[in-house]
């Protein structure tokens, strides 16, 4: 802390150095006072910004919570009660009325899907924790999540000996979910999807390959059907997912 002539104080960095004559006797001192006020101010502003960002992030988390719960529940009720109405009073309605009910239900379920996609998207950016991921088990979970379209399309999914690795479970889950649902969705008409998931170890990590007998993709992207990502590398796992989504878009 340094002192101005008018007795006000300010933060400073001070260095004092002894001055010598030829006989190495101390003849005085040199003092340099560097005013740190600006630096202090800058640091304070940075700190404030960091706090603001933290606050904003908390707000965002809250937003995600509201989206996941408070928006979903009324929609669920909408779907549930249309269903109940059809179940208990179905015989009282004619075809047109039932068509109206279907439209209501479809609208509600589309909305729920949109909310889910938004949530997925917001979770993607979050810094997830690295955990041990059993890919074999992960793919099994994805398959059970997708059981309805799998059954409907008669899809066969082959996978074995997928590795256990250290990675981001949610992102990996989304990645496989994207790829599998793409493979099921973009099948050739009249052909049941046949999907293969394989993994091989490379110098950089694990290389996963998901292939199907669907309608395929434009030749310029044909090479990119393989998604490569490294374990222990967040960016790469994230990019992998980005490719998966871009992949959806291109198709």
């Amino acid at each position, binding site marked *: 802390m340094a002192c101005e002539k008018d007795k006000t104080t300010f933060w400073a960095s001070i260095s004092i150095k002894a001055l010598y004559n030829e006989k190495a006797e101390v003849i005085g001192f040199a003092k340099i006072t560097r005013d740190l006020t600006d630096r202090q101010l800058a640091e304070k502003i940075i700190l404030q910004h960091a706090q603001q960002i933290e606050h904003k992030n908390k707000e965002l988390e809250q937003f995600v919570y509201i989206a*996941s*719960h408070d928006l979903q529940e009324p929609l*669920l009720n909408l*779907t*549930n009660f249309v269903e*109940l109405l059809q179940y208990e009073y179905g015989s009282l309605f004619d075809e047109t009325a039932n068509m109206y009910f279907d439209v209501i239900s479809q609208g509600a379920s589309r909305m729920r899907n949109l909310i*889910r996609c938004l*949530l997925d998207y917001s*979770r993607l950016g979050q810094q997830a924790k690295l955990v041990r991921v059993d890919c074999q088990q992960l793919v099994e979970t994805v398959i059970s999540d997708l059981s309805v379209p799998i059954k409907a399309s008669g899809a066969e999914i082959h996978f074995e000996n997928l590795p256990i690795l250290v990675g981001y479970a949610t992102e990996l889950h989304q990645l496989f979910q994207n790829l599998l649902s793409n493979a099921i969705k973009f099948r050739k008409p009249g052909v049941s999807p046949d999907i293969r998931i394989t993994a091989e170890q490379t110098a950089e990590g694990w290389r996963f390959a998901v292939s199907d007998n669907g309608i395929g993709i434009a030749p310029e992207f044909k090479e990119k059907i393989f998604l490569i990502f490294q374990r222990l590398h967040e960016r790469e796992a994230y990019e992998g997912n980005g490719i998966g989504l871009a992949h959806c878009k291109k198709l």
Partner: protein
Amino acid sequence: MKKYKDLHGVLLVDDDKFTNLIHTKAIERTGIDVQVKAVSNVKDALDFLTSQQLADSVRPGIILLDINMPGLSGWDFMTAYHQLEEKFKVKVIVTMLTTSLNPDDENRAKLDNQIVSFLHKPLRPEIFSQLVEEYFEKED
């Protein structure tokens, strides 16, 4: 009506009364003979479980517990529940989650040894039947 041993009642805990109604209907549709009691908050749930007047003939064998509730949450319920005397406890607690996208809640449910499973809303009759099949013995 199908009857199961030690399964007299089901306690529904959800702040949304319509969800409780949907779940009550789903249970009715299974044709399983149970008394359904629905409450909308944690305090009422605990009061119901510990009530001295609660006859054994309606004592719940299953609790379906919502997690996201205003005030005391489903997790607060579990904290209080763990303190209860054994005689007030029930055989099966299942947490009901609104979305399939909250891994935190799912993981937390897995860690609690009193919670046997978590399900996603809405409860379906066939899912409830499965649950009963798994944990209760059928009576002739």
